[in-house]
């Protein structure tokens, strides 16, 4: 993996220097086949300065506790489940964990509704199979199987998108640490150092709940949403900027206020309490993730650019917000109207917004 002009290099290549410096400075005990000690893995993710002066950039900005729990989970040979709404850096954390622990983040199964058992266990090379009959040579191992035999960290992305019966294939892998191959009367046993990181989204629609048998095999870490409004505004405006450029939308320099407004509305409804912490509000059934805030703002920008005067205004985002908040027409509508009447109506400088929202919700 030496090509440097990849569009997006793997974590272990992009941060190879840091990993090397950490390994050199790391004198703590390492679990078998780990490239770094748990402490060094935590440092790799959270950032810090090594004794030799190497600066390790923080990969994850968030509570230290979360990273420590995640690393400890991997060290106890329990599988790790990273939960969270879209846009909370689940995949990012899982990739860097795998890179730091095993030095390889590529043993990846991408979960979709079409993911089959073969993708998790093994498939067959049918030419070989027909020519020579069933044998190890005809077997095509999955990333999980390879990780087991080599003592590496496997990753399963979007575990809850995988159909429930396919998910359950993982139970044997995680509890018995073995993968039987009944066709050959053999099995592949996991060697020490094997572990699995799964990411999942439990609040979206169209997900397959994990069976409790599978759930028991995981330690769960919930990745939180951005802690402060400023952080979230920052994330949203940065992403909107990127997306806007790829969609060739005109710049909207005045839009920051509306972005802040969208983020405020989303945060308040999500947290069930207003920003000043003085009024409680009901939370709607939708997730109201940062990712959704981004799409509301992008949609608003498109509206403003193509049908408005090019400046992002309340009326451009109002419809988008309504769509994001009111997922369940009966219950969420009441939540939204209460929020409008009890919070938005009385807030200074939000008159336009209130009016725009009233218009679209009527």
């Amino acid at each position, binding site marked *: 993996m030496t090509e440097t002009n990849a569009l997006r290099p793997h974590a272990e290549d992009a941060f190879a220097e840091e990993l090397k410096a950490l390994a050199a400075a790391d004198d703590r005990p390492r679990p078998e086949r780990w490239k770094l000690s748990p*402490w060094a893995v935590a440092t790799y993710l959270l950032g810090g300065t090594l004794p030799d002066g190497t600066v390790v950039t923080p990969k994850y900005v968030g509570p230290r506790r979360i990273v420590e729990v995640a*690393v*400890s989970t991997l060290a106890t040979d*329990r599988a790790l489940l990273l939960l969270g709404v879209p846009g909370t850096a689940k995949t990012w954390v899982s990739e860097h964990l795998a890179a730091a622990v095993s030095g390889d983040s590529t043993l990846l199964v991408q979960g979709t509704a079409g993911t089959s058992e073969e993708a998790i266990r093994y498939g067959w090379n049918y030419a070989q199979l027909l020519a020579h009959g069933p044998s190890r040579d005809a077997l095509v191992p999955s990333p999980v199987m390879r990780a087991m035999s080599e003592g590496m960290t496997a990753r399963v992305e979007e575990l809850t998108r995988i159909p429930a019966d396919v998910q359950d294939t993982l139970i044997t892998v995680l509890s018995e640490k073995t993968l039987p191959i009944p066709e050959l009367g053999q099995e592949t046993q996991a060697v020490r150092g094997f572990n699995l990181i799964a990411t999942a989204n439990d609040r979206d629609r169209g997900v397959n709940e994990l069976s409790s048998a599978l759930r028991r095999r995981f*330690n*769960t870490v919930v990745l939180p949403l951005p802690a402060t409004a400023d952080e979230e505004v920052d994330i949203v405006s940065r992403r909107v900027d990127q997306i806007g450029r790829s969609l060739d939308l005109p710049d909207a320099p005045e839009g920051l206020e509306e972005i802040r407004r969208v983020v405020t509305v989303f945060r308040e409804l999500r947290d069930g309490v207003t920003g000043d912490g003085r*009024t409680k509000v009901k939370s709607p059934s939708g997730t109201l993730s940062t990712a959704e805030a981004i799409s509301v703002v992008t949609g608003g920008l498109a509206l403003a650019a193509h049908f408005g005067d090019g400046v992002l205004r309340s009326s451009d985002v109002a419809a988008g917000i309504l769509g994001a908040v009111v997922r369940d027409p009966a219950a969420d509508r009441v939540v939204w109207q209460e929020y409008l009447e009890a919070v938005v109506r009385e807030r200074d400088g939000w008159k336009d917004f209130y009016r725009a929202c009233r218009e679209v919700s009527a």
Partner: protein
Amino acid sequence: MNGPLLMGVRHHGPGSARAVRDALAAYEPKVLLVEGPPEADAVVALAAEKDMRPPVALLAHAVDEPGRAAFWPLADFSPEWVAISWALERAVPVRFFDLPAAHSLAAAGEDGGLDPDAGRRPLPEDGPAPDGESAPEGAAPSEGERGRAEALRLDPLAVLAETAGYDDPERWWEDVVEHRGADAAADRDPYAPFDALREAMGALREVHGDGGHPRDAAREAHMRLRLREARREHGDDGVAVVCGAWHVPALAATVPVTADRQLLKGLPKVKVEVTWVPWTHRRLGRHSGYGAGIASPGWYGHLFAAPDRPVERWMTRVAGLLRAEDHGVSPSHVIEAVRMAETLATVRGRPLAGLAETVDAVRSVMCEGSDVPLALIHDRLIVGDDLGEVPDGAPAVPLQRDLTRLQRSLRLKPEGGDRELELDLRKDTDAARSRLLHRLRLLGVHWGTPARSRTGSTGTFRETWELRWEPELSVRLAEAGMWGTTVLGAATAKARTDAVGTTVLAEVTDLAERCLLADLPDALPVVMRALTDRAALDSDVGHLAQALPPLVRSVRYGDVRGTDAEALAEVAAGLAERVRVGLPPACAGLDADGAAEMRGHLDTAHQAIALLAQSRGEADDGLLDRWQGVLRKLASRDRTPGLVRGRCARLLLDDGRLADGEAARLMGLALSPGTAPDEAAAWIEGFLAGGGMLLVHDRRLLDLVDGWLAGVPAEAFTDVLPLLRRTFAAYESGVRRTVGELVRRGPAGEGPAGAAPPGGAADGPGVGMPGFGPDLDPARADAVLPTLRLLLGRAGPGETAAGPGGTEDAGAGPGTDPELGRVS
């Protein structure tokens, strides 16, 4: 070991407690000195009684002024408690040797507020909560004052932790003291921890002096004097001392006796009494009351009580709790959680898994990353529900004293028999009596029960009580002693706690009302806060509607009693707004029972909102209009059940918000042939319930009902009958008879042919008011005139010329008005 055994501890530290136990067993002192007010020497023996169960607190209060008081809480894992129990078991005398509360309370009074330092100086032992669990919890000074005072003080623990490279002093203390392996203790020098701590504190005090605690000088002088006394009596080897670690260097220092005496000379003094009161883990907790104390009394209690393997035992308890709450937790979860906690401790470089590690492990392994079950664990285990007990022999609590004083000044004697008391709240004494009784009720001391006035007076400034003092009320009062030392303070504290603990919205509104009645301005903001929070989260319109009336009543009381009801009105308006928004969806798709319930809510909410709009006057920004808008929407919406729809129409009609003929239009719509008979009957019930005069007066409506009823098919009639019966049976008999007569007279107009005139009947000649003949019967009209003249005081017949010519019947109709105008 030479000299007295000086054990510097951290109050409520289980590690300290264990060390104290070991050291006492090894040292066998002849007398024990404990930090605390010497006045408590008299009651210390009670600690050994069977009925005494920690957590308890020593309470010292000024005799003349019960509000001036200080608490010294003790849990069973407090080193002081361990030492006292040890000494009492072996009949070793126990003496408290801090500065007498007589002085500290007096000094507190002079400062104009209770100084947090008046009690035991808690600082070095408490880490991040510098005013500590032993800060007096009586009438605390305002938050701001405390904050400033704290800022000036040094937190020695924080300094030590920082020196050791920890960012959290609590964690540092746990690592170095509380979590020292319990098993290794046997073959270790029992005095070692105290020596090390003394050294550390000595170094600190060399640098920082008194660390911003000037009062300590007098306290430590007193401690030294008493220590000297004890050493004289029992020799150097016979004395053991338990006190905050911070004081140890000062006690070990050699200071001339005269210098100490000098320091103590001329200190102000008050008469003080000391007693034991029950305490709770929750009040030891930092999150409660005045925000002082330790964060995790339950965890500390566990650490102290667990004989070995504390983490394993803790996880088992957590699993037990979760199972009791129907969370599936298997033994393998427990195993994994323990492993996880230990690995986390290793990753974090801690010697043993602490509270933070166990919490993280439980969250990740047992709770699937969710904080919801974790909150339960925090509440029940980490803080805990433990409630202490105090033997009956303990001296009376100051609350009792305060009540006696109030009873005397309000001339309200406790008497065994029933007695009725009428209060006129416009008088000061009566108002104060009412407040006292309401406050006592809040505290669960039901001396008075509100009664219906015998004189039948309904004015808001009158109150009637039934008084009866039962002996068990004294017990209740003693129990209430933990809430405070005065009736006002205790009621306030209780109301605040109740507000936070109540989950049902209606209970919180009830509490708000009682707070207003009891005049507890300090509790009201907390209650209001709880109220808005509950209201915001409650999605059941029924609950909201139930909560509204008491709140609106309170707004009105507020006016009568001169309390500030503005905030309350604000909350009530918010609640009304929520009811308004939530009502239309809540009215959709209801069955018959649901509709009946909703009708009740509609009535209460309507009344309350009308009252609210009225009492808010100008501040009201069209709430009533918006409310009526919703009623109108409901009245004309097909999805709304008939009962509710009819009710909405009726409420609008009563308020004069339906245009002429609109009611008839709505009724015609509801009763038109397309509507199922039971639905129509429900509409009638909703519309007509609670007063049938309407039918007597508006003949059009009666005719609509009559016409519809006559058209109900035979097979549906039996279904409809019970509904109608229910509606009409509730009418007064007079009304029923009149309606019956009107119906017998047949439809309006002339006989059967003239059906009810539609909509607005014209007043033109030939067509009369609905329900009346088309023309006057002059002969009968004339008969009225003599009486009318008498009534008007006009006897002269000369003016009667126009009388019979009057166009209308004299009894009703617009015709009388011109007539009257002319006659007078």
